[in-house]
């Protein structure tokens, strides 16, 4: 029924199947969005990586379809945002309806001066195809299709992985194993580990339909609409004139019955009208869970994406948080493998991303409680909020149809250096230590956007002109720091950008002298009102978990 033709990637026999394989630096299990993003990032950092996937194609069905601004910025760093944005549907406005009336609308990004939009919708298979193409173009990245992990033993110095292929088993030892093998994570099971939390009873139907429509590219959410009384409905536009419609069915729905076209069609007709012409592309009945592993690092085995944590779909926090996992892990693994940091740095992956998972789980659970209230009191309050929201602005803030993914501010991370200068803003949206660097338009050799100007490693964003000797000293460190100067004449060895519209200074609350230290994943880890070489060096040491330097 789908019009999408799955690509088939050929299984190829590896030399590792014929002779004892040398110990690989990193093996990634799972060529989904998270595994591929991690592999591309590692490859770009010069770390050879083998990705194992038990299948030979991309996602079957559209699955994760919303990619948030921060994810697009990460994809920019990985060299594939352009393809994905060109193919996808950008949107910025969400509308919430109760019964037959609009309750309110919201904008994801409320100000100009960002390279990437608030959200891009794209079928997961298209996204994965773009990632596979990019992965194959990055030297050092090898994807092995039809390679299924059947055994994992985590030792002190290495991980022994057994892999099953159409040609039989082979042994693949590696220094680090990253499991990005999805919600059911076979690797997690093989290691006897659990992901704990709660399963929700309500069933939902996803119907992807192909339809020519003049509907705007917006997220529309209905509570108790006339065409599907008592339940909720969510509408999203995807690429290729495909629309995602998500019907809440309640806890008693029969999944096998609800999957049948004769059950789906009347629901669609009620919503779209008897005249609407459409074809069903894909349908799936699902329940969801909110859970996570207690730790994402188990010695030399690390977990990322759905394997590590699972949320409800409301808020698009699954795939988007998985990309942030990969973003967080790649530079740390690269430094550890390169000998420039100890494995203590990987504990910060666990600390930072379990914190992020808790934030996502809290949002996801709250949305779920609002969308599918349990018990009479909970339902009464929910309906009261919706009724009040029509007239009273305060109640609109309580309506929760999903709080859409924003990147986690790693405010409590041990890698951050606390502010020494007291006059930096600290409220929501401020560039506090732990916040991902926000983009802004600039003029410079590396193009018209600030994030595109940052280096692959640590960057010092300086709103003053540094001495050449300081730029040199930072560049020559074991963990080098590249200097990007804003709005000042260039110094040899540093990049310079012009803050033509004043967005950079405003977003970074900068004055002459202000400096921000950004990690390789573009998160702020320290900031000062004046440059101090020693302070920058101590902050870098702290950000790579080098305790002896503190």
């Amino acid at each position, binding site marked *: 029924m789908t019009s999408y033709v799955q690509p088939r990637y050929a299984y190829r026999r590896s030399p590792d199947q014929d002779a004892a394989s040398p110990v690989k630096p990193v093996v990634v299990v799972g060529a989904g969005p998270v595994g591929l993003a991690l592999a591309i990032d590692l490859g770009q950092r010069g770390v050879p990586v083998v990705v194992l996937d038990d299948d030979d194609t991309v996602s079957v069905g559209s699955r994760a379809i919303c990619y948030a601004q921060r994810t697009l910025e990460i994809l920019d760093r990985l060299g594939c945002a352009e393809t994905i944005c060109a193919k996808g549907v950008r949107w910025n406005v969400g509308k919430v309806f109760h019964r037959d009336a609009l309750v309110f609308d919201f904008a994801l990004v409320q100000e100009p001066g960002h390279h990437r939009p608030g959200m891009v919708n794209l079928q997961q298979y298209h996204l994965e195809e773009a990632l596979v193409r990019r992965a194959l173009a990055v030297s050092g990245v090898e994807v092995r299709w039809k390679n299924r992990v059947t055994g994992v033993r985590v030792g002190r110095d290495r991980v022994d992985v057994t892999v099953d292929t159409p040609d039989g088993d082979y042994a693949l030892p590696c220094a680090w194993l990253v499991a990005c093998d999805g919600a059911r994570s076979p690797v997690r099971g093989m290691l006897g580990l659990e992901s704990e939390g*709660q*399963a*929700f*009873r309500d069933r939902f139907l996803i119907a992807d339909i192909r339809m020519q429509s003049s509907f705007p590219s917006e997220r529309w959410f209905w509570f108790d609409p006339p065409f599907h009384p008592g339940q909720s409905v969510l509408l999203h536009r995807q690429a290729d004139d495909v629309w995602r419609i998500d019907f809440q069915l309640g806890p008693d729905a029969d999944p096998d019955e609800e999957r049948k076209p004769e059950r789906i069609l009347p629901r669609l007709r009620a919503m779209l009208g008897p005249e609407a012409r459409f074809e069903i592309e894909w349908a799936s009945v699902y329940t969801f869970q909110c859970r996570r592993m207690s730790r994402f690092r188990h010695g030399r085995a690390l977990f990322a994406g759905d394997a590590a944590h699972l949320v409800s779909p409301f808020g698009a926090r699954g795939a988007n948080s998985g990309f942030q996992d990969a973003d967080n892990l790649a530079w740390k693994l690269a430094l550890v493998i390169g000998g420039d940091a100890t494995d203590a740095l990987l504990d910060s992956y666990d600390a930072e991303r379990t914190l992020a998972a808790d934030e996502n789980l809290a949002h996801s659970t709250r949305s779920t409680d609002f969308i599918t209230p*349990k*018990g*009479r*009191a*909970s339902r*009464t*309050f929910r*309906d*009261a*909020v919706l*009724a*009040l929201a029509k007239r*009273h602005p*305060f*109640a609109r803030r*309580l309506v929760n149809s999903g709080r859409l993914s924003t990147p986690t501010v790693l405010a409590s991370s041990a890698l951050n250096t606390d502010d020494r200068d007291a006059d930096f803003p600290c409220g929501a949206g401020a560039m506090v230590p732990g916040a991902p660097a926000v983009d802004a338009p600039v003029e410079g050799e590396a193009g018209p956007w600030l994030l595109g100007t940052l280096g692959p490693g640590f960057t010092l964003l300086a709103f003053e002109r540094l001495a050449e000797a300081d730029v040199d000293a930072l560049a020559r460190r074991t963990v080098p720091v590249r200097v990007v100067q804003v709005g000042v004449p260039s110094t040899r060895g540093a990049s310079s950008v012009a803050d033509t519209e004043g967005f950079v200074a405003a977003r970074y609350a900068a004055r002459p002298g202000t400096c921000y230290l950004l990690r390789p994943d573009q998160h702020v880890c320290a900031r000062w009102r004046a440059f101090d070489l020693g302070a920058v060096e101590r902050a870098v040491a702290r950000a790579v978990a080098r305790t002896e330097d503190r």
Partner: protein
Amino acid sequence: MTTLVTAPNLDRPDDFYERLVAAHRDLDDAQSATVNAKLILLLANHIGDADVLDQAIAAAREDLAPAGLHPRDDR
């Protein structure tokens, strides 16, 4: 921390109480529950202070022995 006011604070307590009860007089149980929920939400927003609201929630539950399983437990 602002403390929840539990000393008398209503200008005309009997008038208020009469109006509160009157607001429910022609309603069935479900409508009454709706009005109460809206009232709580409106007043909570007016108060705004999370500490005060937390104390009010705690005071409202005082001396109650929970008699029901929370519906969250079964999913």
